[in-house]
């Protein structure tokens, strides 16, 4: 197994099956409003109770909006081997997610694709026991 595939496996596990939720996701995000955006990472917050990835996204008029995507809790990412250097600022990523109900430029992460093909998968709410 190459290092890259190994890491991709880690990332998949981290997002797909082991996020810690501390609040109702359907109360904060709308399952009926999926969104896909491509942008440049400006900041990643490795924090609790959830992590956040911020990306600058250019709209049709050329205006740049900074979007916030919620991820699993930092602890869960760390446990699965994630480290801050895995998503440096400046990385161009494409993220699928669901829009926030409060109308702000914010979404919950369903799938994040890094330039080298590695993926973060699964909404932050998709919590459960660690996979074996």
């Amino acid at each position: 197994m190459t290092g890259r595939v190994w890491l991709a496996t880690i990332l998949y596990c981290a997002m797909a099956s082991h996020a810690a939720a501390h609040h109702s996701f359907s109360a904060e995000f709308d399952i009926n409003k999926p969104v896909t955006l491509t942008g440049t990472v400006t900041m990643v917050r490795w924090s609790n109770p959830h992590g956040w990835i911020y990306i600058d996204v250019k709209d049709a008029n050329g205006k740049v909006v900074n979007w916030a995507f919620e991820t699993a809790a930092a602890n869960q990412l760390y446990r699965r081997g994630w480290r801050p250097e895995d998503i440096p600022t400046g990385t161009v990523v494409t993220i699928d997610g669901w829009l926030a109900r409060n109308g702000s430029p914010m979404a919950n992460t369903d799938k994040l694709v890094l330039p080298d093909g590695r993926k973060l998968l699964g909404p932050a709410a998709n919590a459960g026991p660690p996979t074996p």
Partner: protein
Amino acid sequence: MANRVVAKILIVLLLGATLVAHPSTPLRTAPGQVEGQGGVQPTNSLPNPYRTVENYFKMPDGRTWGSTSAVEIDKDGRSIWVGERCGANTCAGSNLPSILKFDASGKLVRSFGGGMLIFPHGIFVDRDGNIWVTDGQDNAPRAPGTVASTLAGPPPGATKGNQVFKFSPEGKLLMTLGTPGGAAAPGFFYQPNDILVAPNGSIFVSEGHGGANSRILKFSKDGKLIKTWGTKGSGDGQLDGPHALAMDSQGRLFVGDRSNNRIVIFDQEGRQLAVWPQFSRPSGVYIDKRDVIYVADSESESVSRNHDGWKRGIRVGSARDGSVTAFIPDPVDKTTGTSAAEGVAADADGNIYGAEVGPKALKKYVRAPGAAAARTLPRTPDGKPDLQGIWQVRSRAAYDLEDHPARYGMPAGRSVVEGDVIPYQPWAAAKKRENFERRTTADPLAQCYLPGVPRIMYMEYPFQIFQTRDHVAIAFEWQQVFRMIYTNGSRPALPLPFWMGDSRGRWEGDTLTVDVTNHNDHTWFDMAGNFHSDALHVVERYVMVDADTIRYEADIDDPKVFTRPWKISMPLQRQKDVTRVLEYQCRAEMEEANGDFKPDSRTWYQKGSSSAVPAVAQQVRATAPAVASVALRRMPDGKPDLSGLFQADAGGANWGFEPHNEPFTPGGRGVLVDPPSGGLPYQPWAKEEKVNRNLPERGYDDPTAHCFAGGVPRSLYVPSPFHIVQTPAYVLILLERMSWRIVPLDGRPHLPDTMRLWQGDSLGHWEGDTLVIQTTNLNGKTWLNEVGDVVSHAETVVERFTPASADTIQYEATVNDPIVFTRPWTIAMPLKRQEGELLEVACLEDNQDLQHLKDVRDGSRK
């Protein structure tokens, strides 16, 4: 001569009687200090927690120990300097070096001063490490029987002695004070006893060893005489043989006024502040950086007969409040000469050194197991001091580590910092001042963030220590914070910062030493804004002084913020009248007070609603599986060992107990085992409430969205691990979401009904191999899960933990709540052992979700 001595004793006694008769005499001015030397009982009956080490210091071959009264600690805090009288009780006629430096192992590493001194008597190491020595006699020829006390200056013919010398650490002579051979007042010196250099460089010398003079001389740092005070006598402002000098952290000058059997305390201008007789007849006085005072009495009931009833030896106490706490008695019972230490010093580790004139020896005294206090310490089966119990600091350190006057909401307090000043770099001193000005809002605790280490240790809230071979766990009342100190030899698992840091402990003899690393740069040391960076490294020491006192020390190093490492120390006291650590859920209390978290009269406990709570007796399903045939981990007492890191295989319980499969939430297999069908047995109003809570605009109302405690049983099936610490008397559950459950196993009664807690009052007992925990006194503020399942203050819970294998515990919880349900119900799930260690969920650090949920709630109201 004999008549003169008797007359002098009579004068002393008369003066003593006068003092007793007039307790308001200005001689004793400091408040709270011991009154009237005539009225003081001898301080002989104190514990001796020290063991004597003889022959620790090795002289070079061919040289034996002579008399010594001069002993001092090097600038390094560990090495020992001695002025030794050339194998005899004088260096007259000898060229042996008399100033000796020993390393901490007792090896002689430097010696100098050969032929320079007649009678090395007092010694001092200044803050630059220079060595100051007094030469207390001269070389004048004396006819046999000459009475020194008739003289106020040296006899004719003295060409050497009666001077004070300053040497560099390497032994180079840097300065000489006084005339060779000495001089009478107003010249100097005659019989200089001791020397002390204040932190500002001022030089103090005490003079008069039995001659007609007795005074203190103060010099500028370059050796210019500034002033003198004191005449020979026993009255106010008089001295009789000022044999020793010491200075406390406040800069007060302590004079061992030996022949008056008292310590007199002066300010640096010679104003008398207090008189302390309780340390007996002081030949030697030493004060360490923590203001511990050590006083050597070598003459009571021997050389001196005006102090009968007092025992010779070394007394240890506090230079701050004058209390005497320990006594090392002279092993010699009856003698007429000087016996036991005349000079005394103590190193940075608290080891004491006594310099003896009569016995011609330098002895070391160490605190050690086997000493009186150590024998009485409670101990664990493996022989370590047993730190377990409920403790709280006795200090005002939480407000400000340094000396501080009172401010609004901030009572005055004394410094716990060694040397009293935190050594900030200039930029950091400015930042600290800014923090102080903004403290009411900028203090991280104003937002209820985690306090960090060491701050949590000296907040004025109780905490409970649990101790096993591999862990020392501490559960704090404040915000239900906990610390897990690993004593299993492990190292920090992740290179990440945490609010509470990473704690790895080890036992060094009877001392628990804890390395605390991985700090973030958000926490403060106290309410006054003392702060650090993420380069902070804290080394804590827990020293059990007696069964009810732990001395807590912390070395603090942070090269980004401070110019040097510094140290704090303070006592922790056992809270004998506290049987239960309660909860202070800071953030919940804040949000209730400001209206962000609103009461629900149907579910929350209110005083007077107690009648609704039924007796605890429950219909518990008799389902304990047979486990005898399974290999389990067991404790020494044969009970199953449940300790370790676990997480529930929760079947989606945090999103509903019945089988479910909805978008955004993990699918759930269903964990409700009773009733077997039909879902939770709700009362009609509660069923309706549950449906309402599941609406998006109610997401804000789930207490866990606010980072509040999960309650029981929810805390165990939220998707976070927990660590079980098990002792014979307690099961402690440390929840990664930074909360805890303390479960006593001692059969005590529940708290009174009026006491209500987020995590309830849990009591445990063993039924065979099953741990049964009964929880009452819940506050009704929690939700059972994110989909809004309801409980009220009438909730009681019986949980059963049955080990099914070495790494699996079968968990059941039966909930009874007649306000919400028509009958009790039961959920079941396995708890599975996890690899690794607890991390820290500092949920408040970045809880943006709460505002988003509030936006949704507010939006629905438009």
